[in-house]
């Protein structure tokens, strides 16, 4: 299977002598649906930033589709849902305006949207089930619907790799379930490689093919059902902060 992400011997610290991540070896194949879990402060968000090329490893190599991640040439093909994504500032950005921002990439930053851009924006809104709210300000929607709007934004860029950082923060249990089903549908129908980063993985546990547990190093990597039952216990050492 061709690799979407490859980390070889990656270590990282934000200052000299610090080790947020150490000796990470990780290969994610194209089309995989992977959950990266671990306690807060365990390094999973840093790992995600290295995967996306937003941070460079202190040691080791990070590759995206075979290219150094920080110099990756196909950035338009990366979809990203930031932690606690919300429309910025006080502007009442509508769902359509948020999703249209997903058609922005390094390739074409000047000028208006083209007809095919509008089509992709409408398709992305429909895929997450927000057609009826397309012209509603995002800030007036529930947390779950806001997340859907930002997932649509990521989808509008037609990503081959979709990375979600703590997508269920501030979202109720019912919305977490429907978010997990939406992602499973995207994975099944579009074959998008999905990396789901969260300190909890309950909602997607039944949909992901692979779980990577990070606590400075990778302490588990395999199918969720292989995870020892005790690790599902929030009080266990690998789940504690």
């Amino acid at each position, binding site marked *: 299977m061709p690799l979407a992400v490859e980390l070889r011997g990656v270590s990282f610290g934000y200052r000299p002598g610090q080790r947020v991540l150490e000796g990470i070896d990780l290969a994610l194949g194209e089309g995989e649906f992977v959950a990266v879990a671990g306690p807060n402060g365990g390094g999973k968000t840093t790992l995600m930033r290295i995967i996306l090329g937003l941070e460079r490893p202190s040691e080791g190599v990070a590759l995206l589709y075979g290219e150094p991640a920080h110099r990756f040439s196909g950035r*338009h093909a*990366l979809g990203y849902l930031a932690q606690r*994504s919300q429309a910025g500032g006080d502007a*009442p950005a509508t769902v359509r*305006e948020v999703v*249209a*921002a997903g058609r922005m990439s390094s390739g074409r*930053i000047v000028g208006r949207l083209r007809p095919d851009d509008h089509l992709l924006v409408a398709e992305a809104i429909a895929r997450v089930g927000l057609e009826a709210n397309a012209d509603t300000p995002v800030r007036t929607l529930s947390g779950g619907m806001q997340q859907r709007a930002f997932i649509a934004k990521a989808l509008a860029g037609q990503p081959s790799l979709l990375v979600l950082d703590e997508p269920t923060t501030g979202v109720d249990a019912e919305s977490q379930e429907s978010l997990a089903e939406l992602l499973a549908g995207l994975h099944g129908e579009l074959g998008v490689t999905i990396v789901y980063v969260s300190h909890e993985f309950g909602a997607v546990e039944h949909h992901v093919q692979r779980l990577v547990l990070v606590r400075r190093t990778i302490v588990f990597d395999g199918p969720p059902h292989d995870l020892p039952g005790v690790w599902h216990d929030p009080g266990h050492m690998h789940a504690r902060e």
Partner: protein
Amino acid sequence: MLESEFMRLALAAGAIVGVLAPAVGFFLVQRRQSLFGDGIGHVAFAGVAAGILLDVSPVLTALVFAVLGGIAIEVLRSRGGAAGDQALALVFYTGIALGVVLVAQAGALNVDLFQYLFGSILTVTRGDLVTIALLGGSGLATVALLYRAFAAVVIDEEGARVAGVPIGSLNIALATLTAVTVALSMRVVGILLVAALMVLPVSAAGRLAWSMRSTLVMATAIGLASSICGLTISYYADLPPGGTIVLVAAGAYLVALAATARGR
């Protein structure tokens, strides 16, 4: 009123700045950088002082200082490790201190300086209007061309960074636009009030609008109306034009506040 040449020139200059200031301020407000224009204004003050000292056009030197100050804030913030408000404060205070020193050297604590601090739109010449129209038109064209990119950064800066949008270049472009707006607006409302025309119309529109685009369009309409109404009131009531324009914009915000408070 319109039979007077100076009022026709003032209304034309006021209209251009009334549209440009909120169009640029819109992106600053959404990024919670409402005081950025104020900081650049203080750097422009040093530029005015340098112009008076060197006996060259103070508007030109203010423009150069403001652009360099805006770029310095962005570079300090992105590469110097200073948080946004610290970078702003550093350039803000350095600008005003430099201005005070240069003004003292020039012995120019007089009417010449005050017209830049408080505006002097009634002394705008045809040559000034050409400069304001050319630079203002360029500024508005840049906003129109880069609207989608600026909006993408406002909506989700980290997402835009991942997608390869050149955030650093866009920030420099916005800082330069702000600097040009400040330098042009100096003649209309003065350095001390320049940021008000960039912020108040946007805040008023934000209470009434239903989307980002409608906020931008409404903000420019409120800015334009504030300039025209403010100049008209100042003409008939013999009030300072700069202060009157800003008070009208503040009034527009209060009206928007009252309208939305009643609706909620």
